[in-house]
């Protein structure tokens, strides 16, 4: 009892008296100094879904909790971005009483790929969703095969979980061999498949893994289209076709094909686990930097910033593909930072398919971030005209110049992780003079 009340007090204290959100520290203390208390804390969790993979964890988690909320389920989930073991433990501390009893029996947690195998020491998931394995932050992990191994170890050390996998990602598909429970795969319809280039496996080591005998339930994303409504709100529409059950006319108010895949993970997970068949995403708000809209009222006009987190080649390619569907882009802002949370190595921009940018219809291109010139050089070598005055080393200066410009309204921002944070923070600073609100 003592420990949980202290930890809860620490959370309370930090949130009340500092500017920090305490999304990790209480969990870190628990993990480091009182790990023997963790089993007590999690003992009442009956159903746990873990979401992992390089891209799409946060949105998938948010979509699942959105469906659960709509169907009146109580659950515990970690704050977006706080996806290490300590973040999950913190969310549990926040949801327990001083005796360590949780207020819900369902846990929906996103976990960073490398931390998954650590998490399963404490929390054994009943279902694991693996969104994809793309090259991401290789200076942290070294190789994508390592990422695969980490996730594999996590699954092997869980209690034979149900798997919901990306059926188009060859590496992810192999994970079905590590459970004897049910396996579900989300796949893109034939004509869509070419739009996302998943990482290939070029060697036999991984493929040799014996084929499992368990049946795979496949669901296909069909009839995908992106539509814009009068107020410029965007949505992706599709059908999700399975052999036993299908879901029709799904509409998700998010950009891009990735969103359809993430929504499908959420739909199948909640259907399989809770037998939920009804949901409506119409008021779903995108997670931080995932197509998020920020409207800024200036003296001259109303400017809409749409921010797309682009932290690896797959994400960036997808976002560029998405933007090729958009009309009226006044300014395309690309931001490249190389802070630790972005990955210090920015060579991945050379693995991006920037030829896609030729299909994006923008009037002006602006580049910024700690590695702005690397990005400018990448685009110059892709055949774009780069004007030096549109490259800013300082994100703040870049934003100021955008705000000053009377002629621009629609601004699309593709940015790495810390760049997204920085850009949003700078945007917020202009709230004293102007208003920021989110589109409902």
């Amino acid at each position: 009892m003592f420990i949980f009340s202290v930890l809860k007090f620490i959370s309370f204290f930090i949130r009340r008296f500092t500017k920090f959100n305490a999304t990790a520290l209480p969990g870190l203390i628990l993990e480091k100094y009182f790990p023997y208390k963790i089993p007590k804390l999690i003992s009442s969790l009956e159903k746990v879904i873990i979401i992992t993979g390089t891209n799409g964890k946060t949105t998938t988690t948010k979509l699942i909790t959105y469906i659960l909320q709509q169907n009146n389920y109580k659950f515990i989930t970690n704050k977006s971005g706080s996806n290490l073991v300590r973040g999950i433990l913190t969310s549990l501390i926040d949801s327990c009483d001083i005796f360590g009893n949780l207020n819900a029996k369902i846990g929906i947690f996103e976990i960073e790929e490398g931390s998954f195998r650590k998490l399963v020491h404490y929390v054994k998931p009943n279902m694991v969703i693996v969104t994809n394995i793309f090259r991401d932050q290789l200076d942290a992990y070294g190789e994508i095969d390592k990422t695969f191994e980490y996730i594999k170890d996590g699954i092997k050390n869980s209690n034979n979980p149900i798997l919901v996998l990306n059926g188009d990602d060859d590496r992810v598909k192999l994970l079905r061999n590590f459970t004897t429970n049910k396996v579900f795969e989300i796949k893109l319809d034939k004509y869509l498949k070419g739009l996302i280039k998943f990482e290939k496996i070029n060697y036999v080591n991984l493929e040799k893994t014996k084929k499992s005998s368990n049946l795979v339930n496949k669901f296909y994303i069909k009839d995908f289209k992106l539509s814009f409504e009068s107020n410029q709100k965007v949505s992706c529409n599709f059908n999700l076709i399975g052999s036993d059950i299908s879901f029709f006319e799904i509409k998700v108010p998010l950009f891009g094909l990735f969103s359809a895949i993430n929504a499908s993970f959420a739909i199948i997970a909640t259907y399989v686990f809770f037998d939920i068949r009804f949901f409506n995403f119409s008021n779903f708000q995108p997670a931080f930097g995932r197509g998020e809209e920020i409207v800024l009222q200036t003296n001259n006009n109303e400017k809409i910033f749409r921010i797309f987190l682009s932290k690896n080649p797959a994400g960036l390619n997808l976002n560029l593909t998405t933007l090729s569907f958009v009309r009226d882009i006044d300014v395309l802002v690309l931001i490249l930072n190389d802070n630790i949370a972005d990955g210090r190595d920015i060579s991945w921009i050379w693995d991006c398919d920037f030829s896609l940018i030729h299909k994006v219809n923008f009037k002006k291109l602006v580049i910024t971030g700690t590695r702005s010139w690397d990005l400018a050089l990448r685009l110059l070598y892709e055949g774009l005209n780069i004007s030096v005055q549109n490259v800013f080393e300082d994100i703040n200066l870049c934003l100021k110049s955008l705000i000053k410009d009377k002629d621009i309204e629609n601004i699309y921002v593709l940015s790495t992780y810390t760049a997204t944070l920085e850009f949003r923070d700078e945007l917020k600073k202009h709230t004293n003079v102007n208003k920021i609100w989110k589109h409902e």
Partner: protein
Amino acid sequence: MNKKKLIINHLYSQNLNLYGDLGNIIALKYRLEKRNLPFEIINTELYDEKIHKADIYFIGGGQDNDQMLVFKHLLKHKDFIAEEYNNGKVFLLICGGYQLFGKYFLDAKGRVIEGLDLINIETKALDSTVKSRCIGNILVELSKDFVDYWNIDLSFSKFIVGFENHGGQTYFIKHNTKIIRPIGKVIKGYGNNFFEKLEGAWCNNLIGTYLHGPILPKNPHLTDAIIKKALKISELKIFSEDIIEYKAHYQAMKLCFK
């Protein structure tokens, strides 16, 4: 002006493609195109029976599994590669590719994997003396003999910048008659190994280096040097002031000291 078509063979592009090294091919292509120099980029992959003849051979870095597969293929063509090397063809080898061209590689279990033996280096996997990978921004001051032989334009910079990410620790093998030299002195970062502050190796018209980043776009003086060497000419047409290249080079340099 020499109008012979320059052939660039990007070896094993499907397997060794991990750290943006494709950018080196993009840089060569861009700078050749801007000067209207005729060229062709070809690939040799694992399924090819022979290595296609070229003027510049390029190998990037990859995952351990891929590197082993590539290596088996390369070994089958050891004689061809040695012949091309002796004929003065230009080789640019990055990271794993660099290691494969050495005398041997000592893996973590102490097993010796014989290399192509064109560069007089040995590479050791991480062990108790060096436990962590060499990862980070790297700044190298080019050595005078490298600058002279490769006809590097120092008006751009006397440095090269990049990003290294390797476990393997590379050492020159002493007591050997083959001439081999580092390409420069490490000002910031690790280079060949944890201890010596030397980066890369060059001999004849071959350059081996740990620099990703990728190495060529931000170091256009090196890119042009490679083109000059392959075309056997001493001057290249100036087509731009390389302002963006210089800004990127300089920004990366500053970040080395952050």
